[in-house]
């Protein structure tokens, strides 16, 4: 049977196929892996990562990168916890403030990147130091959150079965995913993001507003990582300045595993979604497997490697990917000298 998939969608199809394969293989070893609870937990445990990875996808598609996201979790967590617990502000107001602060930091990083042509890697690395630094300055000690409104939001969820429910965090993640799928594919801004990553020089000459788009992308990434921070404290109700260490690498991994190219221009939010699930599967596998500390890291490395290699060979198996496009040129008279 010939697999007829457009070359464009091949990476994503391969990703999904390998993800399913991985899921089944692990489920074969640990039957409880297939339970609904575990499946829901994939999302619960990684909702914050998912939200962040969405922003990261956009940034990477423009050809940039955002290393500040992990620290942003810490900053937003401490910021919210401090305001809710120490100054007793209304949680919703606090969320709005946190999201604004996150967006502002994102915007400032975007401004440095766009106006001063500074490399995103370094600017966001500075952002990473900065966010965690501010978190440290607000409070070195972690602050537990007991605010009743906050707790109500945290406990809210759509019950599926006894004691299993889809909580707010997962709903936020799914909503963000859908909204940004729409933005990426059905708005001019979304297409501009792809164009900028594909060829910044050309995008400029084509009359696209590069500056605006870039600023917006980093602002959105700031916003989403702040939202990720809120989702994080809805999962771990405390403000802790050490939270989210290394999350930027997890997020980048989700994005690139999903088929997005770090060089920009090519990427899929749906792929990122699968990438998050893959991470979830691998992490959950680790909690099932009782591996000792050092085997854990080896297992992570080996599993991702197997995944990448399988993904690559799947994409290469696809038939259509090599064939050249055909051009038809009609002669002015109307007769065709058409391509075969």
């Amino acid at each position: 049977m010939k697999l007829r998939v457009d070359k464009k969608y091949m990476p994503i199809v391969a990703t999904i196929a390998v993800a399913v394969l991985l899921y089944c293989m692990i489920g074969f070893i640990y039957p409880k892996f297939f339970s609904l609870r575990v499946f829901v937990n994939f999302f619960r445990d990684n909702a914050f990562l998912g939200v962040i990875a969405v922003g990261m996808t956009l940034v990477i598609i423009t050809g940039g990168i955002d290393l500040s996201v992990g620290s942003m979790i810490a900053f937003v967590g401490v910021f919210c916890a401090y305001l809710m617990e120490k100054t007793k502000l209304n949680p919703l107001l606090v969320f709005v403030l946190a999201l604004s602060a996150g967006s502002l930091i994102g915007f400032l990083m975007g401004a440095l990147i766009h106006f001063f042509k500074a490399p995103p890697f370094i600017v966001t690395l500075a952002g990473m130091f900065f966010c965690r630094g501010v978190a440290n300055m607000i409070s070195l000690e972690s602050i537990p959150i007991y605010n009743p409104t906050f707790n109500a939001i945290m406990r809210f969820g759509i019950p599926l079965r006894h004691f299993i429910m889809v909580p707010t965090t997962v709903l936020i993640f799914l909503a963000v995913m859908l909204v940004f799928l729409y933005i990426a594919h059905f708005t001019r801004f979304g297409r501009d993001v792809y164009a900028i990553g594909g060829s910044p020089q050309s995008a400029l000459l084509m009359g696209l507003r590069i500056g605006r788009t870039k600023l917006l992308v980093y602002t959105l990434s700031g916003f989403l990582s702040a939202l990720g921070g809120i989702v994080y404290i809805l999962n771990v109700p405390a403000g802790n300045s050490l939270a989210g260490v290394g999350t930027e690498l997890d997020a980048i991994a989700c994005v690139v595993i999903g088929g997005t190219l770090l060089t920009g221009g090519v990427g899929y939010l749906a792929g990122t979604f699968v990438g998050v699930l893959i991470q979830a599967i691998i992490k959950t596998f680790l909690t099932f497997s009782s591996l000792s500390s050092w085997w854990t890291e080896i297992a992570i490395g080996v599993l991702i490697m197997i995944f990448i290699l399988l993904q690559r060979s799947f994409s290469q198996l696809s038939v259509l990917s090599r064939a050249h496009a055909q051009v038809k040129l009609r002669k002015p008279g109307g007769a065709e000298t058409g391509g075969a």
Partner: protein
Amino acid sequence: MPEADPILSMRRISKSFPGVHALDKVDFALQRGEVRALMGENGAGKSTLIKVMTGVEERDEGRIFLDGREIDPHSPHEAQELGISTVYQEVNLIPTLTVAENIFLGRQPTSMGSLDWKKMNSSAVAALDRLNLELNVKRLLSDYSLAVQQMVAIARAVDVSAKMLILDEPTSSLSVEEVEQLFAVMRMLKAEGLGIVFVTHFLDQVFDISDTITVLRGGQLVGNFVTASTTRVQLIATMMGKELKELERGPARVASPDAPGAESLIEIKGLARKGSIEPFDLRLNKGEVLGLAGLLGAGRTEIANLLFGIDKAEQGNVSIEGEETNISSPRKAIAEGFALCPEDRKSAGIIGDLSIRENIFLALQASKGWFRLISRKTQQEIAERYITMLSISTPDADKKIKELSGGNQQKAIVARWLALHPRFLILDEPTRGIDVGAKMEIQNLILSLSREGISILFISSELSEVVRCSQRVAVLRDHVKIGEMSGDQIDESAIMHYIAEGAR
């Protein structure tokens, strides 16, 4: 000339780059409903003038008026908003997006606030149809050859309803038929009252389409002419600042093909690759120039890529001096004494951040291996030799190649391959974007190289060029080699006829 109500006028525009005055107090005006050709040698400042006009480059001084109002565009976006639609030199599109998106990027049709992909795709088909081109608009732009991409860029620019249209060497890769189609559209737009700026190095095209001509030389305005009352010789003389006599046919072709004693260098049997080129045979003698003729997308570039080991052949074999050889990579090809000057200089030719010097001796160095670095002195000598030989206009050899004008970049790339002293030279559109004088230079070079015994595969969309230089011409259509002609058979109309009728 009547100075009545210009759409655009530019006064005393100056712009300098480190070491060069790209523009020096240039005046320029464009009337409604006229096609103005902008002419000049490579590096004369044409593209820079256009970039200043559209806000890509900041001018050092001077003023710009559009419809009598002073404007000061700072980005191509602003220029577009003002009604200036531009095709820049080199294809400036997004290879990772589809053809349709490339045509509509930034102005996609929407319905209820969200992009209407269906409508966009069908409009894209319509826009291409105007240029008589039928593509699968849902495919990625990078799936198509450079020439097709150039057409897509034109389709994008033409599709906007603008006040004026700027075309910077849009036809450099196109063959006669596409150019005809483009001109038809230009005439239509002109009738609608658009002003059009048209840059090209093809004199025929200038006399065919333009109403007026502006000539730049060394960044200065030399003069404005009405096309109808100007002759070619005049024009060339103004451009180059000296009389050019070699316009007549150059030295006759060398030894006639299949002359007794002609040694065969390369023998190709049934070489093919699915979706790219059907099995074909080809033979090349030492010191022979073989032209490849065909329309856009006929598969000429494919043949070149196969021979040079960029693409791998799926069947057939190549023998060099009677010995079967497997050429599986450009490195192997170079080791066999091959050289290929690629068609797409932007993505396959220039190494933008490196200097002209480095770009020129790169292939030679690569063939010598990494260990034996060519001495700085020799590097400089090689670079300077070719800078003079091909009259590359640059203050010195250490300028980054990406800062050269398009035509000069092309010359530097040609120089890279000449420096290699190959025994088999494949030239895929080597004269793309090169001015008249240098084109003549390169053609003469081809002939003299062939006299030195170097075999050359010569691909060009300009049939006259192929006819002039080749001893034999292979004709391609739709990825199939349909025939060969040699000696006195070679003539433009015969080839055109061949392509149209086909001999299958």
